[in-house]
């Protein structure tokens, strides 16, 4: 039964990764099918295409492979998003393809995920792709990892084989700083341990995949230390009917970290001026406090020069502010990243020009070991680089805050999104005492 959802539930975002034939799309189809999230017309459509192209066999992968080329070639070429709900949780799935050339899509799908499912074919065991996907999940700091050992039916439901694969993983997991890892033996094709516990794995006492997805704790995945409001839009009513609004000047944005309270002292950057929060305006009425990731409008006690791209921060747990940046970057375009080339860098609501001052090394994404300094980074490479920006940006290390520690690079001219960056922790933080005056 789909849930009626009369009580509030939370959302878990997860992505699935594996190589071409590991059965990702089949797994998602199975999750939807067995949790009764599929509707009759969707099943009908599957049956229609089974009769036409599949020799009568329903292909659950056709549920997610939505584009013509994908169905023709039997591949997934892009990130597909799927939605389903149980009475306990709502789920957003990013189905990301496993081919080497689509690593950029995996980064895309994983960037907002709470949890990653890495699929492993029980017959093949841990292959380079599995290590690559796990390493990318680790680099992106996805808090939870599930290793789904699939096609267990094809290895005779062998516990020994399952443990062997788990051992292969555990050999390299300690290098990756992944805290929460769950191994689950499944058969996506037949549904074993996906939604319902399998009769074939009496030796396995853990949760089913869905059971785990429903219960994994995600309450602390947002950063509540260190208030950050990247200003998206200055809210100034033009011709307000209400005379009280004549002087209204609010700063609208989504809180990217921490908590803000009325009366709190804040610092506006890059203006470098402190003020006090006079009002937290929302459409539903003023509130006394607000927290990450709520969208709010702040009214400050002083008239300060703040515009889109400015950041309003609290005076504790301070961020860095610099034009010299050090970051891991995942390259997403055919034209390589080159030293000396200029890009637009977008971080929070701020877009600045940036030049690549150094490529320090490429990261081996199957071991996370640095390799000797390359002259450029190609499509799907991940590397450590230094950038210089035209204006200082206000940021945290990605490990501390995914929202203020991430950026994208945009190619000038084509406007293509070419890179995804994760900033290293700032070497020094903003010093508010130097800026502590009020106009």
């Amino acid at each position, binding site marked *: 039964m789909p849930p009626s*959802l009369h009580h509030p539930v939370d959302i878990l975002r997860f992505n699935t990764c594996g190589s071409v034939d590991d059965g990702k799309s089949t797994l998602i189809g199975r999750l939807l099918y067995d949790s009764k999230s599929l509707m009759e017309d969707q099943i009908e459509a599957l049956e229609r295409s089974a009769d036409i192209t599949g020799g009568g066999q329903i292909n659950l992968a056709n549920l997610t492979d939505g584009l*013509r080329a994908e169905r023709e070639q039997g591949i997934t070429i892009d990130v597909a998003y799927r939605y389903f709900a149980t009475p306990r949780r709502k789920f957003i799935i990013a189905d990301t393809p496993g081919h080497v050339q689509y690593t950029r899509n995996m980064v895309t799908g994983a960037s907002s995920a709470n949890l990653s499912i890495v699929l492993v074919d029980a017959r093949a065991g841990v292959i380079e792709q599995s290590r690559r996907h796990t390493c990318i999940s680790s680099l992106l700091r996805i808090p939870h990892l599930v290793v789904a050992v699939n096609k267990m039916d094809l290895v005779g439901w062998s516990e020994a084989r399952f443990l062997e694969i788990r051992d292969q993983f555990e050999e390299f997991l300690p290098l990756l700083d992944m805290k929460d890892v769950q191994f689950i033996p499944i058969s996506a094709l037949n549904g074993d341990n996906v939604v319902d516990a399998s009769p074939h794995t009496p030796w396995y006492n853990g949760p089913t995949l869905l059971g785990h997805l429903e219960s994994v704790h995600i309450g602390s995945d947002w950063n509540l230390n260190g208030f950050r409001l990247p200003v998206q839009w200055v809210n100034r009513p033009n011709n307000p009917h209400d005379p009280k609004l004549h002087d209204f000047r609010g700063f609208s944005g989504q809180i990217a970290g921490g908590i803000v309270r009325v009366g709190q002292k804040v610092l506006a950057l890059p203006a470098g001026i402190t003020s006090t929060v006079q009002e937290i305006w929302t459409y539903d009425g003023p509130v006394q406090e607000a927290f990450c990731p709520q969208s709010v409008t702040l009214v400050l006690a002083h008239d300060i020069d703040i515009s889109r791209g400015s950041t309003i921060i609290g005076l504790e747990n301070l961020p860095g502010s610099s034009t010299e940046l050090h970051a891991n970057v995942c390259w997403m375009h055919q034209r390589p990243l080159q030293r000396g080339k200029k890009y637009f860098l977008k971080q929070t*609501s701020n877009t600045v020009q940036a030049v690549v001052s150094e490529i320090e090394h490429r990261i081996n994404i199957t071991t996370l070991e640095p390799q000797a300094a390359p002259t450029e980074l190609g499509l799907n490479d991940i590397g450590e680089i230094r950038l210089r920006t035209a204006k200082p940006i206000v940021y945290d290390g990605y490990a501390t805050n*995914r929202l203020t520690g991430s950026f994208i690079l945009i190619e000038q001219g084509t406007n293509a999104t070419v890179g995804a960056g994760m900033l290293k922790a700032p070497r020094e933080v903003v010093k508010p005492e130097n800026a502590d005056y009020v106009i």
Partner: protein
Amino acid sequence: MSNYHLDHLQHLETEAIHVMREVAGEFERPALLFSGGKDSICLLRLAEKAFRPSELPTPLLNVDTGHHFPELNVFRDARAKELGAKLIVRRVEDAIAKGVAVPAPGEISRNRLQIPTLLAAIEEFRFDCCIGGARRDEEKARAKERFFSFRDSFGQWDPKNQRPEIWNLYNARINPGENMRVFPLSNWTEMDVWEYIRREKLAVPTIYFSHRRQCVRRQGQWLPVSDILPPKPNEDVRELVVRVRTIGDIISTGLVESPADSVDDIIAEIAAARVTERGSRADDKSSEAAMEDRKKAGYF
């Protein structure tokens, strides 16, 4: 769970507000597509939440196919007036008269013809961005759509060459003549939309609720009898208690038999539903890639 916790609707809401404000911050001439349907009703409330106490920074735009349910247009006009928003309506009929949209011989549906009408409106007002209420759960070509969906100077979507969207960082840069379609409700489901309508106490057009209507049975669906859809001789016409689940053109929107006459009833009905929302849209059934093909040509 701490007190600093958002439930799923609050989570979807803050994500959508963030997207709306990115549009206001990054584009010079955005428009918000408002049909009066349930998704765009949510979109308007989210715009209020994003931009109040200021005026909405976008006009509302609607492409009137001439085959709309009259109740929908009445609602659309009233809501725009209530908000003090500027409403721009461009009609497929006018586009046909001007030769902007050319029907194929015998083409009755206005589905394809709304594409050139929309593109002409974008050109007329030099809109650089259109905010729409499309959701990824509606259809599988939509499931591949980005929040910020880039369209070239022909209005075309290239699904194989989309900009990767990482974290909540949206690349909104376009060159002159190009256009962005932005979908703040990307992550919403049909259930989320109705739960939001309930939480926000939003008014919706009366046709979403149970009412009596003359219906004719065609291709397994009950279609509403109207001037542009008269019953053929020997056709089975009945007066039924029905409602619409999704609103398309009046000649292609299947009605569902339903006693649901409140938002609570609708939510209970969806929770028990065994077919998807678009199961009642003939326009999506014409081929497996019907939506993909329309989107590539510039459709929403």
